């Protein structure tokens, strides 16, 4: 990440190296969030591999369709934001704005799909550790996506207002990095309670 992408950084050499301060902060924040996701994932796996069957026989595993749809839409949103960054670097602000709007719509769809998966789960969060994990991990993914939506809305507004352009696009760069994190963490967290077969067999 070259420093010329930042509004508050002025190179003093011909070949500046390294990222701007805001990008450093974002990457370090992503390490923190990744460790948070690691803590959640470990907790879910720890419970899943315990002595009891997972999920217990009395619970029917909900359909996986909404979760796959959410993941696909998140991928679309992330790809759209990445495309917007590329367009802004090539001075196509209008296309970038359109692409960001498309990303926001896709991410909104992902949130709706996950909320629908919770609504149709057929169990509450307080019935068993499995149902707690199902609701909570899905809920954390929705939270990450919600933050992504706020970020997208802010960057879209800045793009439309002309605050982001080919010379100053640190905000958009950081938004794209964050969305990639959302995508990866969604894969990990949703896999634990939606996609993957249960690891624990009660043995």
């Amino acid at each position, binding site marked *: 990440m070259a420093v010329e992408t930042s509004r508050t950084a002025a190179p003093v050499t011909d070949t500046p190296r390294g990222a701007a301060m805001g990008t450093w902060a974002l990457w*370090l924040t992503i390490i923190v969030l990744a*460790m948070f996701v690691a803590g959640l994932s470990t907790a879910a796996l720890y419970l899943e591999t315990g002595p009891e069957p997972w999920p217990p026989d009395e619970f029917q595993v909900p359909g996986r369709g909404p979760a796959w749809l959410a993941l696909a839409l998140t991928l679309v949103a992330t790809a759209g934001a990445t495309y917007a960054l590329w367009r802004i670097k090539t001075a196509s602000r209008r296309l970038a704005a359109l692409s960001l709007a498309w990303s926001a719509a896709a991410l909104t769809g992902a949130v709706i799909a996950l909320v629908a998966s919770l609504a149709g789960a057929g169990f509450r969060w*307080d019935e068993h550790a499995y149902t707690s994990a199902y609701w909570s991990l899905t809920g954390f993914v929705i939270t990450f996506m919600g933050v992504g939506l706020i970020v997208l809305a802010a960057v879209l507004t800045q793009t439309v207002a002309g605050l982001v352009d080919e010379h100053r696009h640190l905000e958009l760069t950081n938004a794209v990095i964050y969305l990639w994190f959302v995508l990866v963490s969604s894969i990990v967290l949703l896999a634990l309670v939606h996609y993957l077969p249960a690891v624990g067999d009660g043995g």
Partner: protein
Amino acid sequence: MSAGTSRPTDTELLDYVWAARPGFVGWLGQCNHKAVGRRFIFTSFFFLLLGGAMALLMRTQLALPNNDVMGPDGFNQLFTMHGTIMMFLFVVPMLEGFTIYVGPLALGARDMPMPRLNAFGYWVFLFGGLFLLSSGVVGAVPDSGWFAYVPLTRAEFAPGLNLDFWLLGVTMLEIAGIVAAIEVVTLMARFRASGMSVSRIPIFVWSGFVASVMILFAFPPLVAGTILLELDRKIGTVFYDAASGGDPLLWQHLFWWFGHPEVYIQLIPALGMAAAIVTASAQRRMAGRTAFIASLVAIGILSFGLWVHHMYATGIPLMATSLFTAASFMIAIPSGVIIMSFIGTMWWGRLRWTAAMYYVVGFVIIFVAGGITGVMVAMVPFDWQAHDTYFVVAHLHYVLVGGSLMPILGALHFWMPKLTGRIMDERWGKIAFGLIFVGFNVTFFPQHALGLWGMTRRIWTYEADLGWNGLNLLSTAGSYVMGLGMLIFTINMIVVHLGPKPDTPDNPWGAESMEWATGSPAPNYNFRSTLQVASPEPLWDGESMIGAKGGEDPDPPAWQRQLDRPETGLRQALATSGLDAKPDHIVTLPGHSLWPLWATFGLGVGLIGVLLDAVALGVVGLIALIVAATAWLWPGVE
């Protein structure tokens, strides 16, 4: 800046640009690293005194058998708050405060890389501390120990708001710690004086960097664990309920995943402080400097593989406990290297026996004793005998008081001239040290024996015929001696700040690192000119410091002129490349902002909403947080 038509000097211009805005709002909006660092240091010192007073109350209760100074509930609350305050409100914020204040100066930087984030960290820390203390006002003081083990902390066994105060308050303090860690890592990576390559970074800054990286990896799992526990308590999830497929041991894993590195997060920056003091006192480079730094890194890595040694008594399989025993032994190796570096530096140097140096010697003696008992409790058979006894209380206090408190008190002596422009009285400093050192050992050494004789932790009283009376009375007497030492230390610190400001020399200890190359206290702009570093001891080598006092570069490049004479009126600082610290780009920094305070306010209101089950309040707080954070990050908004 001088009035009239005369052209201001470089220094006047720098002072004007880097000065805080006037008035109370200006004070609130300060983001500069010196203001934030000082706030961290003196707020956490207040919490130290508070936590110490609680310890005295506990020792008073335990002085005699069947004592009734307080009941069991009060005792539970005291040991919970004592541990929580010392761990979360004193040691870590104090060490971060020193890193934030001294770090940029020692690196030759003008500020931290993200000043508003810096201020946010302090406000969250302050609010988290006040939030925890406010539990006393509403009569719901946390009472389940600083580790909050489940199932005792689930709603059915701990009704009321006590634990909710703890969980939400600690989460805020963790966020504050993470924020400061992000700052420090970025600082060391990019905000160094030209020429300060990785091999020339001061040991103290290295130690702050290692601890900060550890924070990034250790704190989030605890945040995850506390959120899951709060979900169990508030909305009825069952992560920790064995009857519903959950597991109470999950909490212990998540807690100690954080908790054991936390011990080293508290130790490593303190080692850096002690290294700075001993280097200046011995007037020589730290013996085995590279090995010392490598050992800091090694401890940081190894500390993540030790957490189960807190859980030997929970039924973990024997093979697993053996692996953790081996890892626990392994960490003694870099610790030993570091201790030998200290001894070697003292041995080969020409020591000046300042009060700060006394604390370093105290640290070495006490920490080594704590390390030896640490090896003992790392052995599974011994741990099964000593687990949950006063032996462990003695061990952890030897490690934490030796490894953190002693260097911190020494560091307050050592860096006080740079913090406030005052030098603490040496004679009273040495008297205070003597009382603290003797008092500490009289307090805690007997507790080893008490533990081996069967006195369990966290009991509020004991019967008279158990054979514990004499040693408990001795321990309490020692705690009062230590308390007297702390009182003298505090009075010394206050008294030197009364009266007119003295003309304190820039470098009263003849130290080697760059914070001593500027005024005492450091001026608003830190350094009048940009600096050039040629060795790890820039003030001793005679080659560094081009551009410092008396050494102007006759033909500086344009970027350096821009930094040295800020005609634009902007606060600007130099960012350098990561490894070799070559000038890379100029960063424009904000100088005043209330948005971090508003963001903290939103976060706090949101958490109060969670505490009180007030959904509307929680939503208001969340919206306030989002608005404040958006405004904070909006381009062009300061």
